[in-house]
């Protein structure tokens, strides 16, 4: 076990309206087995002892599945590893390092406080069509819906998106197309998603645009930073779904 001393440069912003700034903090005796969030817990304990305002950051399961943790660390969403921030460990850093910690930056993700941003834009996109309507009653036999192995695998890969927003944070255009495309593709591939397929593509894209996200220029930064490795093929599929829906849907 090694311990390290670090300099942290952290975005501090007291509330949504205030003008924020980067502030510098020294922290010492950090165990390299700690997760990145545990390191921030240590910092916050220090700050509280000194009667200072602790740094606010989003976190929940700390198991890499909930999508709550965010943080742009040294210019990369979720830091130097392709994982969630909670699964990032301090052994990825060296003694004496300076670490820059910033919130997701996008117009559609306004800062609530410090490093915590409001990601309800994603919820509104989901509400606009990221579901299947199933009538109540007993479920039919699963074997009535044959799904090829490849399709099942692809749909599952798309479904692994945890909606953390790293794609938006990584994109130079703050585009949400990787997230939205994963949600559209997942359902477009499965028989259960067919009934609302065209409406879904149209509504979700419209909501995405209304939220003020940028547009995709195919740099691939989103997929390269995505902790769940959602592929760019989803974006192509969404474009296909959207174009097809626009040309053939009943919505005039």
């Amino acid at each position, binding site marked *: 076990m090694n311990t390290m001393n670090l300099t942290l440069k952290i975005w501090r912003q007291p509330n949504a309206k205030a003008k924020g700034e980067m502030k510098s903090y020294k922290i010492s005796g950090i165990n390299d087995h700690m997760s990145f969030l545990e390191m921030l817990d240590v910092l916050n304990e220090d700050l509280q002892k000194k009667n200072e305002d602790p740094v606010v950051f989003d976190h929940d399961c700390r198991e890499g599945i909930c999508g709550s943790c965010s943080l742009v660390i040294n210019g990369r969403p979720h830091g130097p590893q392709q994982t969630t921030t909670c699964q990032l460990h301090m052994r990825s850093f060296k003694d004496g390092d300076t670490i820059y910690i910033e919130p997701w*930056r996008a117009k559609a993700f306004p800062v609530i406080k410090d490093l915590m941003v409001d990601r309800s834009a994603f919820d509104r996109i989901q509400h606009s069509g990221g579901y299947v309507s199933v009538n109540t009653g007993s479920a039919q036999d699963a074997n009535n819906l044959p799904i090829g192995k490849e399709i099942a695998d692809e749909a599952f890969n798309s479904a692994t998106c945890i909606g953390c927003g790293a794609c938006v944070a990584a994109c*130079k255009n*703050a585009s949400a197309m990787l997230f939205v495309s994963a949600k559209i593709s997942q359902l477009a591939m499965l028989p259960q998603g067919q009934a609302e397929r065209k409406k879904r593509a149209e509504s979700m894209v419209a909501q995405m645009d209304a939220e003020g996200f940028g547009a995709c220029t195919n740099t691939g930064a989103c997929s390269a930073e995505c902790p769940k490795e959602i592929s760019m093929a989803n974006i192509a599929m969404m474009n296909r779904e959207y174009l097809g829906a626009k040309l053939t849907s009943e919505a005039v």
Partner: protein
Amino acid sequence: MSLTGLFLVSFLLVHLSGNFLLYRSDNGDAFNLYSHFMSTNGVIRVLEIGLLAGFLIHIFTAYILTQRNKAARPIQYAVSASNAKVTWFSRNMGLSGSIVLVFLIIHLINFYFPFHYGYDTYVDIEGTSYKDMYTLVATVFKNEWWYSILYILAMVLLSFHLQHGFASAFQTLGLEHKKYTPIIKGLGTLISVLVPLGFATMPVYFLFFN
């Protein structure tokens, strides 16, 4: 962006294949006949308007897209580290495109406008008089050598632009498939190297070998 981009790539291919007539060792006769055809044929003149529209729409949509994408991130990161998997070309399409546009305007001033308005050196081919485009090209590249350097640099930037643009256009149109995407990407790389290289050989040829 994707549709106009692919249309402009098709123009590059036609333009390049026509320009290869410069290399016929017939004192430029074939090239001059080709120039005459391109500037007088009715179908070509109509397509020319389509080409101009293609450029304008491509540039206009790029401008709108850039404005919208800039507005999507009002506060920039203090530190921004690009992922190693993301190419420089893909992040700087606006830069490479703008330089190619500047080049295009100089290119039109060098060749298109003089040829259509004011240039009056003629050459006799089999009893008919044609404007001598070949000599104009040779003069610009040879006597004003800094244009040649500029042309070659512009072709490097065009190569960067195509490097991302060609395959990206297919992705935008949703044309992605396990079987075909690797072929499209390979074709994109091939076009982005060979087409600008083909154009760049022309100033080099007139500077050093003609």
